[in-house]
């Protein structure tokens, strides 16, 4: 493709065509299931068919006789260490639990892996599964928050009393009860959000083999966090970390589900190590739906006090997150309640705050991070509280937000966080104006006159994106992510290879990061190439989550590129006998200011490597530099306002989205087209959570979602076109001015959709606070039947 302009220092900010596209479009992407190694075997897992039981016996002897089966291993055979996620909090606040790679004595959810069957192909491995005989001494399953907290409830983990893994009360403003007592307006919400699957289209998977020459276990796996997978694999298998290499090929999405260490990839690696043959495991969709990491099942009870003008005075919230059977590594079961507790006040000037956050363990598939992590839920709570207060005080829903959003920066919140500058009020105003200019308020009025139900809903939010080590340290995770390292290396031809510790799974890193380097070095982008996702090539990295890639990874990349630029200048300066400040880099060459002297990068590289005797003593041969970047304050905050227009259909209860408008501010947009793509994709997932997707469990703990017939993923029918407006408040704390754009869409959409539905329901007097919003609920509301919500 002819898309390699010489950088004039201004590729950043342009919709540079994606460099990953040609191979992906031609079918030459390489995803984990595309890897085939000589002698490769295929693994499948014997999984628990019951939700809660002691394992009486696991008899896999007949499995070995199934044609094509090569081996079968149970926990006893593999003797692996457990996966244990840790928070540095007292036992009263956090109870660590061990997640064995294969279940040992007990199973805790339907789908829990019990044995790994290895066969000559996946079909034969599946045949093998049927020959396994597992007998269970079943225990009563714990399947809801209420059941988990009940007196005398069965314990999912013996060590976790009342099935509570996390119980923290991070904030409690003194005198808050008095504020509530005296307030002219107090409103409450009780919201529940459904258990969701992040659902990358490519399921999880791994191909592992022992490399005799390197004396290394090589694990190709689709993970967002290659280095953390290496750490866990080396610990579980009791190998030095250097004896494990994790390599990530192209990834078909992740959205957080691939941001935690799975048991299956470790088991597949262990089998490969045992057999000294390559072993491939590719998760099928049934397992991906029911037994992968899930997310989002949360229950909030919140109260807010307002003055007569609609200004918020206090917020009191109780957050319970159903984390399922295990604490995920490295984030732990604290990921959702801690996020919610710390950041619930969001974009609003909140003077008093009290919150309790709990993680409850149940006999359901474990949860992990999912795009947005708790923010879609607490934003929904805040936005419902404001809507409710607006109704109570007869204020316009946009006006009440206008009176409450933070307008002066830096702002230190009641949650102890200092927010960097954002465009909270501007985005709200622009979003409303955009909706008005398209005439939606008139259309709404006209529809109402015809007896149709159109509603308009908004949501305002900010999201912390640049979580540096300091911000993560406050979570007290034992693994404290935050910094990133980048190496930038020029070869003798003047071409550049650079690394990032972040991990692309659809966010266009190969393009956006290259834009940064090309600009910094004034180099043709075609001469710049990214390496990511290989623990042998990259010193260390925390991967991609929390929208940190461009914010933190991109900053490290820029710093490293600048450092290489300095070295290029220094070498050129030494050749000319001038000070480095006399040298500038343009169009792939060093030039002496106000003179004719030019050294191309090839010429400088030739000196640095092939004629190093020409270098002065204080300059080392070679052109490889490394830089790290971290955010040392509370982080950076992207922000946005979303608006959604819906029509409710009285006959069917269907919610149709007529319009969606998003005003986003992620600071400097390195590639605006990529940012828009992230917004649209995120909004689609947010709408999915608001209206469609949910994993439920029956009384025995069988999950409802085992195929796409049961788990309703929205298609192009259900997802509307999205109008996007950009605002740009450059970030002061990052090298790129970027703030991060991966998650915002998902965060804003559920609240906007829910508020729009409630606006359309206004004449009925019904208010809905739960998602997903089912057609049945809407139908009942429109037809005067009692609401379903109280019973759920």
């Amino acid at each position, binding site marked *: 493709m002819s898309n390699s302009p010489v950088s004039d220092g201004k590729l950043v900010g342009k919709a540079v065509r994606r460099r990953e596209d040609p191979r*992906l479009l031609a079918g030459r*992407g390489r995803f984990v*299931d595309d890897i085939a190694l000589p002698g490769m075997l295929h693994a499948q897992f014997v999984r628990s068919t019951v939700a809660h039981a002691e394992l009486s016996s696991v008899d896999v002897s007949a499995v070995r006789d199934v044609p094509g089966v090569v081996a079968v291993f149970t926990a006893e055979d593999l003797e692996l260490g457990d996966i244990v996620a840790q928070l540095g909090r007292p036992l009263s606040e956090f109870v660590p639990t061990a997640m064995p790679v294969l279940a040992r004595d007990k199973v805790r959810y339907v789908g829990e892996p019990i044995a790994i069957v290895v066969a000559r192909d996946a079909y034969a491995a599946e045949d093998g599964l049927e020959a396994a005989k597992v007998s269970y001494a079943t225990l009563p399953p714990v399947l809801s928050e209420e059941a988990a907290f009940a007196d005398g409830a069965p314990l999912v983990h013996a060590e976790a009393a009342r099935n509570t893994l996390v119980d923290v009360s991070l904030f409690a403003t003194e005198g808050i009860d008095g504020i509530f007592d005296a307030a002219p307006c107090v409103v409450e919400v009780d919201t529940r959000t459904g258990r969701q699957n992040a659902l990358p*289209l490519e399921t999880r998977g791994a191909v592992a083999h022992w490399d005799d020459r390197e004396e290394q276990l090589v694990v190709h796996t689709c993970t967002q966090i290659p280095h953390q997978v290496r750490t866990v694999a080396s610990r579980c298998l009791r190998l030095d970390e250097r004896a494990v290499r994790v390599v990530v090929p192209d990834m078909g*999405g992740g959205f957080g589900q691939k941001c935690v260490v799975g048991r299956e990839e470790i088991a597949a690696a262990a089998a490969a190590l045992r057999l000294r043959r390559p072993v491939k495991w590719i998760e099928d969709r049934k397992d991906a739906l029911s037994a992968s990491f899930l997310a989002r099942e949360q229950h909030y009870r919140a109260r807010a006090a307002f003055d007569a003008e609609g200004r918020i005075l206090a917020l009191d919230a109780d957050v319970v997150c159903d984390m399922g059977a295990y604490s995920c590594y490295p984030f732990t079961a604290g990921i959702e309640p801690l996020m919610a507790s710390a950041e619930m006040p969001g974009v609003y000037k909140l003077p008093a705050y009290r919150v309790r956050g709990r993680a409850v363990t149940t006999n359901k598939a474990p949860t992990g991070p999912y795009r947005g992590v708790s923010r879609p839920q607490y934003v929904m709570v805040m936005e419902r509280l404001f809507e409710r207060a607006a109704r109570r005080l007869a204020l316009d829903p946009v006006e009440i937000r206008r009176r409450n959003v933070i307008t002066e920066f830096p702002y230190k919140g009641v949650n102890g966080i200092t927010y960097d500058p954002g465009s909270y009020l501007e985005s709200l105003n622009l979003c409303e104006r955009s909706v008005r200019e398209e005439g939606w308020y008139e259309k709404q009025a006209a529809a109402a006159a015809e007896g149709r139900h159109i509603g308009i809903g908004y949501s305002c939010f900010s999201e912390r994106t640049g979580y540096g080590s300091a911000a993560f340290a406050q979570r007290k995770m034992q693994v404290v992510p935050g910094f990133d390292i980048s190496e930038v290396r020029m070869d003798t031809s003047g071409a550049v290879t650079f690394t990032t510790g972040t991990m692309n799974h659809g966010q266009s890193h190969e393009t956006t990061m290259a834009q940064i380097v090309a600009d910094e070095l004034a180099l043709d982008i075609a001469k710049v190439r990214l390496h990511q996702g290989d623990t042998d090539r990259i010193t260390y990295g925390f991967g991609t989550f929390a929208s940190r890639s461009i914010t933190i990874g991109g900053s490290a990349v820029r710093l490293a590129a600048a450092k290489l630029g300095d070295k290029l200048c220094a070498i050129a300066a030494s050749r000319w006998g001038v000070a480095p400040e006399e040298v500038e880099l343009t169009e792939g060459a060093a030039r002496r200011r106000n003179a004719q002297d030019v050294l191309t990068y090839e010429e400088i590289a030739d000196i640095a490597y092939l004629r190093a005797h020409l270098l002065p003593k204080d300059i080392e041969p070679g052109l490889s530099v490394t830089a790290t970047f971290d955010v040392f304050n509370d982080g950076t905050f992207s922000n946005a306002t979303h608006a959604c227009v819906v029509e409710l259909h009285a006959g069917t209860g269907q919610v149709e989205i007529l319009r969606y408008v998003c005003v986003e501010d992620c600071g400097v947009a390195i590639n605006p087209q990529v940012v828009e793509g992230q917004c649209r994709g995120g909004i*689609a997932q947010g709408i999915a959570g608001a209206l469609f997707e949910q994993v439920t469990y029956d009384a025995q703990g069988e999950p409802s979602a085992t195929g796409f017939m049961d788990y309703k993923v929205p298609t*192009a029918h259900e997802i509307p076109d999205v109008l996007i407006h950009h605002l740009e408040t450059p970030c002061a704390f990052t090298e790129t001015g970027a703030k991060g754009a991966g998650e915002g869409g998902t965060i804003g959409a559920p609240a906007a959709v829910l508020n729009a539905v409630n606006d359309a329901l206004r004449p009925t007097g019904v208010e809905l606070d739960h998602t997903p919003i089912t057609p049945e609920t809407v139908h009942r509301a429109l037809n005067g039947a009692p609401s379903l919500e109280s019973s759920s």
Partner: protein
Amino acid sequence: MNTDPVVTHPDLQLITLDVNGERHDVITEPRRTLVDVLRHELRLTGTHVGCEHGICGACTVLVDERPVRACLMFAAQAEGSSIRTVESLSEDGGGELNDLQRAFSEHHALQCGFCTPGFLMLAEGFLAERPDATKEEIREVVASNLCRCTGYQTIVEAIDACATTRRRTCATPCDSPAGKEH
């Protein structure tokens, strides 16, 4: 004990497949799906598997120029048909992207790219049959496959833009490969 499946498996069959204009003789089990044979025996890994139960469309290929879900068909059932996979789209089978692929790139109609081969083959088959498709009809067809990354809008726009250009260029006789499709 395990030995090479080709030698030992009880019921193997020899099938002949015509894929991207090339003839392949494959010895395989009758139960193997078309997508597995394409991906794992012929090593045409461009076609992807997202669900194995006919919903996501990631495995869409053209069988006799019609979009078909290759996970719902046994390879043996495809004997005698002509099969086209995403690998056939690039104009010289490995170089220049065709107009549909270029439209996807221009419109940012792919992020992770996992669903992309399925959407490309869906669109390729559909536009060949309905070159005059309206944007709304294109949206209908796009709704047959799942994408988890893009929110679909850009996929619809890419296919619509490609169709529009094809119609424009083919108003007069043309010999572009795109033109030959319809």
